[in-house]
């Protein structure tokens, strides 16, 4: 479960990105976070994986208050969370297999388990046959699938996705969405910031719209609601 209570975020340059947000996301939900550019979506997402810390208020995720989490504890917290980015953030010098395995190596998992689990998730994203390739040898869609595989290899309860289809063509975007659907069907909470009107309007889920740092709309099975 994720809960934000009275969250404010003001950057040192004086910009207030989040201006008082209260929201609760239950385990197993699929939530779209939408809104115009500069509305505060990115800050909202970054606070969820503790890249940013709120100026005031509390963010509780899986029982951990992120506002008070010490820097040294951040890596441990992130191990129970999957994060997917628009620009994939893969390690360019590591193969597909190594990129995914890395998330398990950091928790010092058994080598046998790593091998089995990595092949499982690569199978899920349909990239088992490309395990030995480098990210640069893959298409954008394939790279995003590697990134998704990495985010779920630890079997996290929550996956945060920041514009995961932003760099992809429409056809590939649907493929990626199908994978997220499957992950969600297995009980994982998904919080996804997106600008993709068609996806939000077609695959219906809860929509939280952020404008000027506040929640403008929070609807179950909502629409995108903007002209793009």
């Amino acid at each position, binding site marked *: 479960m994720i809960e934000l209570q009275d969250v404010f975020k003001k950057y040192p340059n004086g910009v207030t990105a989040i201006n008082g947000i209260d929201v609760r996301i239950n385990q197993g939900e699929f939530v779209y976070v939408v809104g115009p550019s500069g509305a505060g979506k990115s800050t909202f997402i970054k606070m969820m994986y503790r890249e940013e810390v709120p100026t005031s208020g509390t963010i509780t995720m899986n029982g951990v208050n992120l506002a008070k989490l010490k820097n040294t504890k951040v890596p441990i917290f992130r191990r129970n969370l999957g994060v997917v980015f628009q620009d994939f953030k893969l390690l360019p010098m590591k193969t597909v297999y190594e990129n995914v395995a*890395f998330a398990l190596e950091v928790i010092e998992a058994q080598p046998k388990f790593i091998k089995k689990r990595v092949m499982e998730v690569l199978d899920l994203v349909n990239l088992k046959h490309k395990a030995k390739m480098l990210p640069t040898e893959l298409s954008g869609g394939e790279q995003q699938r590697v990134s998704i595989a990495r985010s779920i290899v630890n079997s996290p309860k929550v996956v945060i996705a920041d514009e995961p289809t932003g760099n992809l063509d429409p056809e590939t975007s649907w493929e990626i969405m199908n994978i997220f659907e499957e992950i969600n069907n297995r009980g994982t909470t998904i919080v996804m910031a997106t600008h993709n009107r068609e996806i939000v309007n077609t695959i219906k889920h809860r929509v939280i719209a952020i404008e000027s740092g506040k929640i403008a709309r929070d609807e179950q099975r909502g629409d995108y609601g903007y002209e793009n």
Partner: protein
Amino acid sequence: MKIRTLGRHARESFKSIGRNGWMTFASVSAVTVTLILVGVFFVIMMNLNKVAQTIEEDVQIRVHIDVAANEEDQQKLKGEIEKISEVQSVKFSSKEQELEELIKSMGEDGQAFKLFEQDNPLNDVFIVKTKNPQDTMKAAKDIGKLEYVTKAVYGKGTVEKLFNFIEASRNVGIVLIAGLFFTAIFLISNTIKITIIARRREIKIMRLVGATNNFIRWPFFLEGLWLGILGAILPIILIAIAYYNAYDYLAPKLVGNFIQILPYDPFIYQVSGLLILMGALIGVWGSVMSVRKFLKV
């Protein structure tokens, strides 16, 4: 940390050296060039030091004994000289031995002095060595005051100048080596820093996936260590070969001369050890310092 994880870090560091080919080349080259400079300079300094030491040890006081002194007086004088705290050894050399030495040292021209063998004008002499070469002047002054000493000669002026010169060149050498060492650290750590800056994205991603700072640091630490050691190999080979040849060429020519160079074995092994240690230290230091910058959340 589990041994398995340490093995993983070691494998990662080797892979990274291979995958970052050009950066590895740049870092290793920087280490190589600087260590060649440090190594050559160190070899020269150590040998100069050895020469200086030999010269210092060669400094002695020649105490001319009054002709009026009989054997008993001479024994008494010897005892008094030995009592001076700076004195290490006192050796007697008779006026006949002195003349012989003189004739020998003058070569062909020395034959002319043979005439004096009948009526030797030289004095018997005590050859005095001090424990510390720097104390020669003081000891000579004290000896000069004793009874039956006509004069105590030690190359006044020349010895002082020599000691000043040796002292100055040692100090300059230490300053230069220290300067070179810090330049090396600066140069190498900067090169390594550049290679790590190029990989800051990598470090950021590792953090996002949940790697602790230590987990990220270890492969970089080992990579720095390998880079430093790799960079030390070429300087060691070059210096060993060059020194071997120089020693082979110079040592026979210097036999019997007071200038001696340090023998190949064990000196070159000491230099090699020093260069490997320096390479490793600089490599590790450079990479650890550079990674540290990117490990702040």
